[in-house]
């Protein structure tokens, strides 16, 4: 059964075709089976499912952190299936931003230094970094915490730093894995507001979650069940 689900009128920013992922364990475990997915620029997409349904696997493949066993994956019009590891790494740096459930904010570095990590990886000129960091901090409402050490931030502040770090290089797609999983309701709402602003600016947001509120918030929601994508929000 085809799982192609696409919003009309916009060019796809990513496209998966018959993607399958099998882990070579004993016995082998197939996490994704025949996944077809098309996402358009500026779209807010939620992928929901129970634990073990393959959500993280899908995110890792979309995020070029892992390779599919079979199938085809095009990102920004480029076929990643035939790319070298170096090329995929470069594409990931230029086109993608990540936000994880655990923010992975480095406690021994300041907020600015955490965000600057991404700019160093993308080899942004040093003299331009301060300005870009200031801009994204303003977007996430943490300008006043620029010089604070990561370990001194609250959970909500850390997640906002993680978002700032993810978007500082202006990626095409923001991938978020359970971004509100460790946050209370107020902080969760703050994160979604930031995502809304990003989407309005043209950034595609793909959120992996088991939080139904996010599924309701998104423009489109897909459900992963046993490694297969099905249409519609879960009931």
């Amino acid at each position, binding site marked *: 059964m085809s799982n192609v689900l696409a919003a009309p009128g916009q060019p796809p920013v990513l496209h998966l075709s018959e993607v399958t992922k099998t882990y070579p364990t004993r016995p082998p475990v197939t996490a994704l089976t025949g996944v077809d997915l098309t996402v358009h620029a500026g779209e807010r997409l939620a992928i929901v499912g129970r634990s073990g349904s393959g959500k*993280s696997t899908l995110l*890792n493949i979309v*995020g070029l*952190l*892992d390779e599919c066993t079979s199938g085809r994956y095009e990102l920004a019009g480029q076929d990643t299936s035939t790319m070298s*590891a*170096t090329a995929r*790494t*470069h594409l*990931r*740096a*230029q086109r*993608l931003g*990540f936000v*994880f*459930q*655990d923010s*992975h904010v*480095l406690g021994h570095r300041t907020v600015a230094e955490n965000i600057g*990590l*991404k700019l160093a*990886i*993308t080899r942004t000129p040093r003299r331009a970094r301060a300005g870009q960091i200031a801009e994204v901090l303003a977007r996430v409402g943490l300008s006043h915490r620029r010089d604070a050490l990561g370990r001194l931030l609250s959970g909500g502040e850390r997640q906002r730093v993680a978002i700032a*770090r993810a978007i500082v290089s202006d990626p095409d797609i923001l991938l978020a894995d*359970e971004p509100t*999983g460790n946050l209370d309701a107020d902080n969760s709402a703050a994160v979604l507001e930031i995502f809304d602003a990003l989407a309005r600016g043209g950034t595609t947001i793909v959120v992996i979650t088991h939080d139904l509120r996010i599924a309701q918030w998104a423009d489109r929601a897909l459900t992963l069940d046993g490694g297969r994508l099905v249409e519609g929000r879960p009931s």
Partner: protein
Amino acid sequence: MSRTQSSRAVDLIDDVVVELSARRSRTALIVAAVALSTGALLASLGISSTAAQQIASSLAASTLDLVTVEVNPVETSSDDAQTATGGAPASYFPADTQARAESVTLVEAAGLSIAVDRNETTAVRRPGDPQEIQVPVLGATPGFMNANEAAQQSTTTWLLETDQHVVLLGTSAAAELSIPISPNPTGHQIQIGPTLYQVIGFIDSGRIDLGAYAVIPYGLAVDAMRSDASSSLLVRTAPGAGAPVAGVIRTAIRPDQPERLANSQVTNLSALRQGVDTQLGQFAAWIGAFLLVLTCLLIANSMIVSVVARTAEIGLRRALGASRAAVSAVFWGEGLVIGLVGGITGSAVGAVAVVAVSTANQWTAHLDPWTFLYGPALGGLTGLLASAYPAWNVTRISPALAVRSD
């Protein structure tokens, strides 16, 4: 032991084995570090003891196994007066001097020599070649050559005991005369003064370095000097036997008038110093090598722990778009910096320690200025070597797994 206690003991052992086995490389490194540190301590004790023995042996061998016997200067002056008035030339050493010397217990070899022209050099050239060089000429017996232990390329040294015009050339003298050094120098001659000499072999170094000499038969040299007053008997003894032999050698040679002779012990200070320097240097080098390997292991172990602790950070960097090489480079860099800083600090600490110990013992401190370059270089190299395995390990971390939340 009750059943409960034994069960707890087994559980404990099981836990320990599981935890150690889970991080085998780290466990292996720690074990190796302990082994090396223990080994270094035991080795330093053993090597220092061995080096001390070697140094003591060198001391004994260098200073106490060569004795020279010469004519007492007081005796020669009175005999010179006799000669000047027409008396017969003095003969201070009996004809069987070598045999008498070698009959003394602990004497291994003995022989006579005499410097022609009283240690001045003599004009020497190849026949027909107008170019001449100045070479010290020594008359010597085969016994002298044996006692001197010079490296010889000749099987005809016994000819020095005859009155034939033969010569053993020092290798540097041969090179100056353009005479090729070979085991069979047939056909080569040199001219010493007006006389032609057949080259029968080549000599080099020795307890007395003969590389620049031309050595002719002892008898011919004595005839040229008209007296053996400037002759010298070289006696090589068993190691450490120089002193007792020196006490009896004059009487053995001239039991009638031992006062006509004077003896002294030959001390080769240069060789002694070099020997001690070498042995101490080897001792220090081995200990240092042990410690460096130990340091390498300790750094590597610490970095492996760091890699494990920073797995999530490594995964994050990869997710942000850093390549394997870029993430690995961070650990290479950390190892290099640790090594360089450690090397610089170690150089300073070492220098202070040398000065402090020297001051405490009222020695003169000796510091090699190059130490302050060797230290950081060695430290940096050690740090890099230690980083190799951790840096490689980093490239194997899966970013997808590393950033997962449990």
